[in-house]
């Protein structure tokens, strides 16, 4: 028997934290929320089909709209992620939700550091079909500060009806418009992007061309 069969690895998967920040306001009722839920199921399937991603990617979900701002999913390893079925209703407390998402990321990093777990740059991925109905200045400021120090990568995706100019003031990176309700394509892209993270260097890990789900 070759000695190589006895080689054992360090038991610490590096982590890639991803917060999904999702609009569940009343305007998402019907086809949009159904498509979003289908997209989340697709994300689960895609991540769990990749052994490495299932161990490295961590998913959290913050929703804004139905029941105000909710942490529907605390960080969980993708292998253990079970896609929730979201409901719609209410207005759009996006500013508050962004702050919750940024707090989750900060806390997760502290957990990684105190446990000596190596990690990749976290992502926050916001999807909305409108604009904030609450105050959002401080949230936008925090996003700018975090991006400036490369603390995370914040993406905003607008569904038809979204207030793209406002999103441009919140996100440093250019917001993208979803083509119709192609949430499934969007989440396939997201899962593929997360699976590519380990082979790339920071700064390029998020420079992935969005394809197939944006409307030009």
């Amino acid at each position, binding site marked *: 028997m070759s000695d*190589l069969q006895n080689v054992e690895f*360090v038991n610490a998967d590096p982590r890639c934290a991803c917060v999904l920040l999702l609009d569940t306001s009343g305007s998402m009722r019907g086809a949009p929320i159904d498509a979003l839920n289908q997209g989340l199921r697709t994300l689960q399937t895609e991540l769990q089909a990749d052994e490495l991603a299932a161990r490295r990617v961590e998913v959290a979900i913050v929703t804004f709209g139905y029941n105000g701002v909710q942490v529907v999913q605390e960080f969980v390893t993708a292998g253990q992620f079970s896609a929730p079925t979201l409901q719609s209703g209410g207005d759009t407390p996006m500013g508050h939700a962004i702050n919750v998402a940024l707090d989750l990321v900060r806390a997760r990093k502290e957990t990684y550091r105190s446990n000596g777990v190596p990690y990749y740059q976290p992502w926050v991925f916001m999807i909305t079909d409108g604009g904030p109905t609450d105050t959002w200045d401080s949230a936008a400021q925090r996003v700018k500060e975090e991006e400036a120090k490369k603390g995370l990568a914040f993406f905003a995706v607008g569904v038809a009806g979204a207030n793209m100019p406002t999103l441009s003031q919140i996100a440093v990176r250019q917001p993208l418009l979803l083509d119709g309700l192609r949430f499934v394509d969007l989440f396939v892209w997201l899962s593929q992007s997360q699976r590519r993270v380990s*082979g790339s260097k920071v700064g390029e890990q998020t420079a992935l061309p969005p394809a197939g789900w944006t409307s030009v």
Partner: protein
Amino acid sequence: MIHPVSDIPTVWRIIGASVTGTSHLARGLGCQDAHGIRHLAKEVTVIAVADGAGSAGRASEGSELAVKSSLDSLCASLENVPDLPDTSLADALRGALIAARTSLTEMAGAEEDDADAGHASDSLDQFATTLILVVLAKRWLGIAQVGDGAAVVRDAEGSLQVLTIPSSGEYLNETFFLTSPDYLQKSHIRVWPLSADALAVMSDGVQVLAINYADNTAHAPFFEPIFRFASNAHTSEDELRSFLESPKVCAHTDDDKTLVVAIRTDGTVLS
């Protein structure tokens, strides 16, 4: 991959392999890791390991060229200097980093000169690569490091020591490159009295399996079987390559993987 074609008897048995990571295979990218090994004399061996940046358009050329030019430079500096003082070794390593960087800038510059001839001009960034150099000299061990990857030795007491310095960045995939403007300031060059009987040099695709990031220590259950394997004169680089390509390894890392292992064969472990 550069291998010594030499009849120089050497006290080091060295095997190495660079293999394409599964994420690169999936994207149709070739292997962007490269490594080289040269024996200059019975007790002088030099090793280079380079990892091209994933986003760099010509990363594999960058890593191959960095390996070749740094080893050329080391060979020129160290040949026929039998009992090199440690300061000269540090200078030789620094010169090798500069030579590697220069070869990349010349390549990028030559491309720009060809722009009129219809060739696309590539900026230096297209050749971005990390580089680790190790010199095993008669009384000294020297390391030069630009970017991530790791080097580990087994010392006279049989303990594993990590010789490389971890990236100071927050993220696992944050590193510097030979093409970074301040590469020399960010490089680490260190020389120690040689007291190792085994050495491993690796790119970050293997580092993630073998080094505890929390405290930059070597994971003994990784290195002990690897050193046993390399000590066996009947083992081959093909076996090492197969190991790096195995499902067991690919389940834990999808990056390109390079591992070079050196074992002292004359029974000497200097104090």
